């Protein structure tokens, strides 16, 4: 494509991508594809005050063969626009620093630059002024431009398709000649194809926050902003051949490519006088002695030597040292952390204490982590307690310096809901309508379909509605703004702001770079992920509680391994609340996998993933495991790769190895395949490998059918298969939390509640589960509760009761709770009045405690009585009475009130209030109160359903705990119902789901008519018909308000999926991405 000498030549110097948020309407990929089609040989991406899109553009350029010219459009404070293009690496560094300067001044997502700032950074940059009219203002700006960029100063000539176009160009060219600035043709491209004009208008509306009817002259009023062919450009600018030729000259001068960005590891401060490698080796052997006090096993020694050798060859020692210092700092602050991801394949990481997978007991594949062929920086992700990670992050900034450390950004892209909302608003649809419409959609891929609108009785004949659906589909995937990555640090030796612009983040004291983690990956920068994991906080709290109350001192690595009781519990799928294996799908799998060893758990974590499920690997694996199917390997090399997993690829690295061993891929190609599978946007990319893989396998003697099957298995993987080491790291946390739950359910429950929100389940289920395990739960009490849930001694010395903390009281602030606990001290409160005076918290906070029934346990005041008493409190105690109270050392009541007998609350109402104000109840289950009615309607209990016979017809009803629609199994919805006897698991097939879509999406209590399906110990109810019982549930409170049923985070319907929660890298999150 490049350098075609036939026909006219033209380089487009002004193309705006959609990384100029809500301005450009096309992606870099679209622009480059179109440029390739049109025969444009090079394309400059100039986004507004940003180079956020250029890595994507760089990649697109590599694919299409159209050269990328790195550029940026500076919008200066006086309103002038200057396009700048670095000619070399140094000029690019200056551009980055210029942008960093402007962003630092202006704050997040803004940039504040003026002409005065430019001269310091202008060396090596080419500057093109984007003029308006050929007037005095323009002449003045041209003079400034000329003074700033001297030989690199140009004036852009663009057609506007407005009256006086020819005259304007003529005058501009004259003006340029006068100012000794050369004119150059640009086309001011906003979208790649004329069809995108509508979308462009829509994003302009979104930017201005108005509807298309109100937009008026704020539209982009210069027409024809799509990419045009060189012939067309030559025709349009026939009078300016030199200005056309100049596009090529500029392109020729701007030879800077992102390939030139060299990454430098930061120096570790502690390595005075020693090479990094020597330091690392010293630390490694020291660590090994610590890890293996009885002597380092030979096997481990060999592995360590091998790894250190490889690290030396690839010069990765500084990187290991960096991660080591971060982890060491966290340890010094007593912050629990553990490495995950491929790093767990490294014995060095283990002995340094970064990861916890013991190489002695596990087979590690170091090459998955670092490989000589791939030559790319290793990727160590470390999970920290989510509540205290900020300490680590600030330490990183301070230690490495703010010019050398910053977080990656995350590109927030439009998903279905956001697209519908914004497009609908722009087209003037009422907000409630767009909200309804978006509530009908689920995740990425489901998209907005006409059937959703029909479901809502919406009139698809309505033009605006049709346009909305159509344009929303186009908008999906477009970036909306940059946000910060949850924890991906980029650390450099050289100034970071010479590699990429840095901007301040919304959060105080944080700064982010303009590129996201895929960009960093593509450029092979080193990144340390400091992730926050809720379960780490939970484990930390749990281990602390163990130490304090039971005098058991453990950490993640010293928790007794391979404990049979723990595995027995896991096999029963009694795993509510534990890490990873608590979801419906995982629980259903546990009794089939029957984990007995740690490696079984690793498989368990890896197998319930969209990848293996999509690739149809689960059932073959299970059949082989149960001995129902022989384990066969068509070729011995396959046995080598897949032996551990009975011939079924379950892990990412196995997929890669299959490609290498069986289809003759090089390691590099296999890695490309993995990447292609990982980036969901390029779904077409994977298929490109199909011919190669299938062809390669057939060539090597596999039959075609087997090859096709293998490919479809691999295709299913995407990024949704785990690498083995990652699965192992997660399995370790899963095991540790299971062990805690198994042996210390009291500690586990308290730790889990204190680490909320996290996991799949709401506090109500966690508490209920703990009670089922014999833990005594004590209610919130103003005289006993602290902020956190705490353990209290019981008659039995080993058993502790758990006291719910004030954190369970909805709406109560931590400060007020602390004030109450502090004021309480050793002397219990005697009355509401007493609490109010001693703790001096606002009456509103006391109301919240009263509503949570926190005055009953110690003061025997029912909700209403407590509220009655609080209602009588004023803003301030009367001074005279306060003085009297102080003197008497006791409360002197201000008024002698007649006794008022309040009507006691009905039991059902108490339960409703419990749910409403603490999210759980220690009283009867709400369904208990409806049981007579349900029995009359022949509904059986969940327990009865679970004990039912296979194929038996049944009717069950219960609160809707979790609704899940795994991306892997598109046509199934799992619903968990709960009643007073237990839970029942519903399976809703697509047909039934479509028929009862609204009920599934909205009901808080469901009745189901269906058939029992029994697979060993696992019982599902396959529903034929669903009945919305929400009204019955609401009637409990005898009020017209819906039942305040709290939903756990596992309930995918209830959560807004627009923002992934960074703290739970659990299945739910990844699953949603998969849609």
């Amino acid at each position, binding site marked *: 494509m490049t350098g075609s000498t036939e026909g006219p030549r033209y380089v487009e110097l002004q193309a705006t991508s959609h990384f100029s948020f809500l301005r450009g309407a096309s992606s870099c990929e679209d622009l480059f594809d179109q440029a390739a089609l049109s025969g444009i040989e090079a394309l400059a991406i100039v986004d507004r005050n940003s180079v956020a899109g250029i890595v994507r553009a760089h990649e697109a350029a590599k694919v299409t063969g159209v050269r990328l010219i790195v550029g940026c459009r500076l919008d200066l404070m006086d309103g002038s626009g200057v396009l700048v293009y670095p000619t070399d690496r140094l000029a690019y560094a200056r551009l980055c620093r210029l942008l960093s300067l402007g962003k630092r001044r202006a704050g997040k997502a803004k940039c504040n630059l003026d002409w005065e700032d430019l001269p310091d950074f202008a060396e090596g940059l080419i500057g093109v002024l984007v003029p308006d009219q050929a007037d005095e203002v323009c002449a003045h700006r041209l003079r400034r431009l000329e003074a700033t960029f001297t030989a690199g100063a140009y004036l852009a000539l663009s057609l506007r398709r407005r009256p006086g*176009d020819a005259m304007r160009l003529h005058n501009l060219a004259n003006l340029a000649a006068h100012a000794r600035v050369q004119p150059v043709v640009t086309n001011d491209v906003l979208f790649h194809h004329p069809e995108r004009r509508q979308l462009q208008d829509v994003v302009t509306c979104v930017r201005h926050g108005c509807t298309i009817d109100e937009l008026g*002259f704020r539209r982009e009023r210069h027409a024809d902003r799509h990419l045009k062919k060189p012939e067309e450009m030559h025709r349009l600018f026939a009078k300016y051949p030199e200005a056309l030729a100049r596009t090529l000259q500029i392109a020729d001068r701007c030879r800077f490519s992102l390939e030139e960005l060299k990454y430098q590891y930061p120096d570790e401060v502690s390595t005075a006088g020693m090479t990094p490698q020597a330091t690392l080796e010293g630390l490694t052997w020291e660590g090994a002695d610590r890890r293996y006090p009885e002597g380092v096993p030979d096997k481990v020694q060999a592995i360590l030597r091998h790894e250190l050798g490889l690290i030396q060859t690839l010069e990765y020692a500084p990187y290991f040292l960096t991660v080591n210092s971060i982890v060491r700092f966290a340890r010094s602050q007593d912050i629990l952390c553990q490495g995950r991801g491929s790093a767990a394949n490294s014995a060095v990481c283990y002995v340094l204490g970064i990861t916890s997978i013991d190489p002695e007991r596990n087979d590690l594949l170091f090459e998955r982590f670092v490989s000589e062929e791939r030559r790319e920086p290793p990727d160590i992700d470390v999970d920290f307690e989510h509540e205290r990670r900020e300490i680590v992050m600030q330490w990183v900034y301070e230690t490495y310096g703010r010019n050398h450390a910053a977080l990656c950004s995350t590109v927030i892209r439009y998903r279905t809901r956001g697209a519908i909302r914004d497009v609908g608003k722009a087209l003037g649809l*009422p907000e409630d309508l767009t909200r309804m419409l978006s509530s009908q959609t689920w995740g990425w891929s489901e998209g907005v379909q006409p059937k959703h609108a029909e479901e809502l009785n919406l009139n698809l004949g309505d033009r605006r509605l049709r346009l909305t659906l159509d344009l929303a589909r186009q908008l999906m995937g477009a970036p909306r703004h940059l946000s910060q990555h949850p924890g991906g640090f980029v650390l450099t030796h050289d100034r970071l702001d010479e590699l990429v612009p840095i901007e301040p983040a919304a959060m105080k004291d944080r700064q982010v770079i303009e590129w996201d983690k895929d960009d960093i990956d593509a450029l092979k920068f080193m990144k340390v992920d400091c992730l926050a994991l809720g379960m780490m906080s939970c484990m930390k709290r749990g281990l602390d509680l163990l130490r304090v109350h039971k005098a058991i001192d453990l950490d993640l690595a010293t928790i007794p391994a391979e404990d049979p009781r723990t595995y027995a519990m896991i096999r029963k799928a009694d795993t509510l609340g534990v890490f990873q294996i608590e979801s419906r799908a995982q629980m259903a799998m546990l009794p089939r996998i029957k984990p007995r060893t740690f490696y079984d758990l690793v498989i368990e974590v890896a197998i319930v993933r969209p990848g293996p499920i999509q690739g149809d690997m689960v059932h073959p694996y299970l059949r082989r495991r149960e001995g129902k199917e022989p384990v066969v390997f068509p070729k011995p090399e396959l046995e080598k790769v897949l032996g551990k997993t009975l011939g079924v690829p379950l892990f990412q690295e196995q997929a890669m190895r299959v490609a290498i061993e069986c289809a003759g891929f090089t390691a590099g190609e296999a890695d490309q395949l993995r990447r292609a599978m990982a980036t969901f946007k390029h779904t077409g990319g994977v298929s490109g490998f199909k011919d190669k893989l299938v062809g390669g396998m057939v060539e090597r003697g596999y039959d075609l059918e087997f090859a096709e099957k293998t490919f479809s298995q691999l295709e299913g993987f995407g990024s949704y298969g785990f690498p083995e080491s990652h699965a192992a790291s997660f399995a370790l946390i899963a095991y540790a939390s299971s062990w805690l739950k198994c042996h210390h359910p009291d500690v586990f429950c308290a730790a889990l509640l204190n680490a909320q929100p996290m996991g799949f389940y709401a506090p109500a289920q966690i508490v209920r589960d703990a009670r089922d395990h014999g833990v005594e739960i004590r209610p919130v009490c103003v005289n006993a509760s602290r902020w956190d849930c705490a353990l209290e001694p019981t008659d039995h010395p080993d058993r502790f009761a758990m006291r719910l903390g004030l954190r369970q009281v909805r709406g109560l602030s931590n400060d007020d709770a602390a004030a109450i606990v502090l004021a309480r001290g050793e002397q219990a409160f005697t009355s509401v009045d007493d609490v109010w005076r001693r703790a001096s918290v606002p009456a509103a906070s006391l109301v919240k405690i009263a509503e949570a029934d926190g005055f009953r346990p110690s003061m025997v005041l029912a909700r209403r009585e407590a509220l009655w008493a609080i209602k009588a409190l004023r803003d301030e105690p009367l001074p005279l009475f306060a003085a009297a109270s102080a003197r008497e050392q006791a409360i002197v009541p201000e008024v002698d009130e007649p006794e008022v007998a309040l009507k*006691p609350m009905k039991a059902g109402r108490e339960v409703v209030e419990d749910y409403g104000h603490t999210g759980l109840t220690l009283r009867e289950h709400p369904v208990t109160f409806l049981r007579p009615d349900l029995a009359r309607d022949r509904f059986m209990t969940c327990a009865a359903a679970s004990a039912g016979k296979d194929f038996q017809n049944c009717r069950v009803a219960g609160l809707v705990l979790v609704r899940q629609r795994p991306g892997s199994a598109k046509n199934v919805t799992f619903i968990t119902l709960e009643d007073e006897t237990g839970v029942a698991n519903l399976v809703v097939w697509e047909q039934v789901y479509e028929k009862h879509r609204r009920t599934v999406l909205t009901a808080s209590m469901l009745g189901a008519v269906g058939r029992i399906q029994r697979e060993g110990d696992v019982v599902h109810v396959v529903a034929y018909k669903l009945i919305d019982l929400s009204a019955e549930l609401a009637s409990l409170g005898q009020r017209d308000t819906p039942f305040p049923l709290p939903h756990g985070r596992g309930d995918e319907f209830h959560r807004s999926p627009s923002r992934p929660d960074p703290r739970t890298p659990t299945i739910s999150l990844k699953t949603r991405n998969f849609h």
Partner: protein
Amino acid sequence: MPAAQARAVCAELVAHDADPEGDADALDRLALWALKLYAPIVAADPPAGLVIDASGAAHLFGGEDALLADMVARLATAGFTARAAMAGSWGAAHALARFIHAPTTIVPSDQSGRAIAHLPTWALRLPEGMADALGKMGIDTVGEIEATPRAPLALRFGPELTRRLDQAHGRASEPIEPVEAPELIQVRRMFAEPIGAPETLARYTLQLVKALCEALEAKGLGARTLDMRFHRVDDRIEVIRVGMAKPVRDITRLTRLLCDKLETVDPGFGVETMVLAAPMAEPLPWKQVSTDLAEAPTPDVADLVDTLANRLGAGRLYRAAPAQSDVPERSVRRIEPTAAPAGETWPARWPRPTRLLPRPERIETLALLPDQPPTAFTWRGVRRRVKRADGPERIFGEWWRRDGEVDAVRDYFQLEDEAGERFWVFRRGDGEQPATGDFTWFLHGLFG
């Protein structure tokens, strides 16, 4: 429930926008209606009620039952579903009318308290949120409030609760501030002999206007509409109506406006009575005339507007204002003759013709595709050679309005012929894609 959700439940749902002001006005009118018909003390009880002091009024209808029944029935014929209750106090009647599901309820004065005891607390017209707060304490009915000691209640819920309670029980007085029917300003003149000659009618019109203006001036009002009725000897009534943009009580102006319409009156065998009324009148205070010599008084075109509007019909008089649209037909909108300027302008750099043809007219042209201006064109049979041209100005259809405009493009050119006349022409389509238009040419405007 949001409207969209409601529609999802019921497809046939007909939705109307809420109009609280309109509702309040209608309620006021209903109050006036009740005032004329039932009792001298009536007030609107927003948002959806009327309160009537029916003391001494019931016997006129044959008893209280009959009164209420009559009221409910009459309202039903007017399309209102109504419930009526009669009790010893406003509060009690208010509660009963809203919470007893019967068309009419009558409770003797001494039994009001008992009758409302089982009603929920929000029947008491309590401030926002108080009924909920009471509910939290387990106090759900009026009777339960009554049964609770007053001092603790007042301490917790303030005096408003006990005040409302007392009002409902008739222990505290609650005066009704009745509506008053506004007096219709009108003057009439009866003739001993029927009149019919136009000049006679005009003369008496002047006299009636004089009398009306005196009445208006006495109240400081000006008329916005005038109705003049001519009662003919054959018992038919002829009516003319004039409207004014601003309140007016200028005798000459009003007379002229009325006389302009006299020709539409058919006096038949003669008119015996003329009535002039000002059904819509607004305050019009006296204003000091500026005595400053330097300051020219701002011209008042309201008179002209009124005259024209009454002659041509109100809808036909408008002013043009710029609108923010690139499509020439839509770049102008009509505004009220006396409306303030909208403050919008077209971009000065992009000139538009001084005259826009009401409909673009087909022209024959010679032009090169895709975007060259015509070299010659024929309009209304006259062939013109193009000397100078500018363009194209590319104007896209407004895709959000109609399907037909999604792809539509017009390329506009300014052309100057040899005589120096300048024209605004366009071609449908961008000259490349047939989907954008059929490449036919039109003349759309003339530059001055």
